[in-house]
């Protein structure tokens, strides 16, 4: 009974160590591939478009309603205490520092990270990765490095777009739900927020992009089995990315603040 309990813990520890070791090794391989930076530019541009440009509509939609939801939640207290002068600051502060990077990171992980894992895993099980190697192409420089770079860059840029849209959404909902004028919202926003608040969120966005890219590539290329393996890989990738985002958000918030 006791021995099986410890065996189970030991097994889980080994699995976790294996994953962390694999991700660390992948990070090392990517770093090596970037010194000097030699990777496939066509594939890089293709991924920027596929992962970034095609994500813009869903990011705009998510961000707009996120801004709105924050004002709706706050509107009860704003009306009760007449704290209309804090709406712009409150919305901006939380969007810049927390809600923007976290929600967009999770959305990006769900849309782009899972797709990336599924694509890479399918390429592994259908021998397409071996096909690349057989054609004397380094899969890391051709597939992995462009995807990792594209994800970091695009989550950073999408967070800028999402943040702007969320603030716009908050101002719009603030006007019609909490009765806060645009001028009042802008005054509260511009007088209380600083560039550091935005930078705080953008640093998080870049790191979240890196977490999603590493996880999605690792679980994609380390897949075992056929269709069932691909499903498991996508599932593990999304869970690991979500966990990574939340844990690193805590670490970053604690340290940067």
């Amino acid at each position, binding site marked *: 009974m006791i021995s099986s309990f410890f065996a189970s813990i030991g097994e889980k520890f080994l699995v976790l160590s294996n994953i962390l070791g694999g991700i660390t090794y992948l990070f090392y391989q990517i770093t090596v591939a970037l010194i000097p930076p030699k990777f496939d530019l066509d594939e890089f541009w293709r991924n920027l478009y596929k992962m970034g440009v095609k994500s813009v509509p869903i990011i705009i939609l998510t961000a707009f309603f996120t801004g709105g939801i924050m004002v709706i939640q706050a509107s009860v207290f704003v009306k009760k205490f007449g704290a209309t002068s804090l709406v712009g600051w409150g919305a901006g502060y939380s969007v810049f520092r927390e809600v923007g990077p976290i929600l967009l990171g999770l959305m990006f992980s769900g849309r782009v990270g899972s797709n990336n894992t599924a694509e890479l895993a399918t390429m592994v099980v259908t021998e*397409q990765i*071996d096909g690349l190697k*057989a054609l004397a192409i380094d899969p890391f420089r051709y597939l992995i490095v462009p995807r990792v770079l594209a994800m970091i860059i695009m989550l950073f840029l999408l967070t800028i777009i999402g943040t702007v849209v969320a603030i716009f959404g908050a101002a719009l909902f603030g006007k019609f739900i909490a009765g806060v004028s645009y001028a009042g919202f802008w005054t509260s926003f511009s007088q209380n927020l600083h560039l550091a608040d935005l930078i705080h969120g953008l640093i998080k966005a870049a790191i979240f992009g890196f977490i999603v890219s590493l996880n999605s590539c690792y679980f994609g290329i380390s897949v075992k089995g056929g269709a069932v393996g691909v499903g498991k890989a996508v599932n593990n990738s999304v869970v690991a990315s979500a966990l990574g985002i939340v844990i690193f958000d805590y670490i970053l918030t604690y340290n940067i603040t």
Partner: protein
Amino acid sequence: MLQLNDITLKLDENLILDRISLNIQPGSIWGIIGPPASGKSVLVKTICGFFKPQKGNILFNGTDICKIPETKLLEIRKQIGMLFQNNALFDFMNVWENVAFPLRRSNPDIDPELLREKAWKRLKKVGLAGSEDKLCSELSGGMQKRVGIARATINKAPLNIYDEPTAGLDPVTTSKIYDLLLEIKRQNSSTVLAISSDVEGLRNFVDNIIVLHEGKIRYSGPEKGLETSTDPVVHQFVRGEEEGPL
């Protein structure tokens, strides 16, 4: 051209290749046959450097590919054209892009018109002119196989490896594929290594044959000598008899 000396490979503690030794001369055609899970595909993948054997060495034109780093291995692979068992076509590319891809990668500065012409000629050669813009998933099994052959041979590599070039194809298409492989071999003066479960079809195509069973070579030599082999495994496998060690 290719020499395997005492190759032993274990994967997850399972012995897959057991002391395999071979000497393949330039311009020859070798066939590999054997029951399922006898190590045929693993053997050719080991020759391509996908697996590192625990013992022995593989000399490709004098270079031991078991001892060189991945970057050097990529250079060796430029001299090998490989058709995978399930074709391994890139599903994010159409037929034309799949065939042109190796040529574009090995000659980044190639004139786009020349690239177009070469890829089109290769597709015409395998009877797929007119299917350039189709996705590989839209093609039948035989057509996908031909795209795989076109991709494996467009660079005119000195060694061509075909893993099950006729698997799942009807007898007429099988015969056409073997004719095509022979024509390509003559044009490129290449060395060929082919795996097939279609023993009769393969025997008509090759000069020499290897019979693998449980990772061991049970026969290696001229195709014509296969009938006279006294090994019971070879005897049963080649004749397709029900009684025997298999």
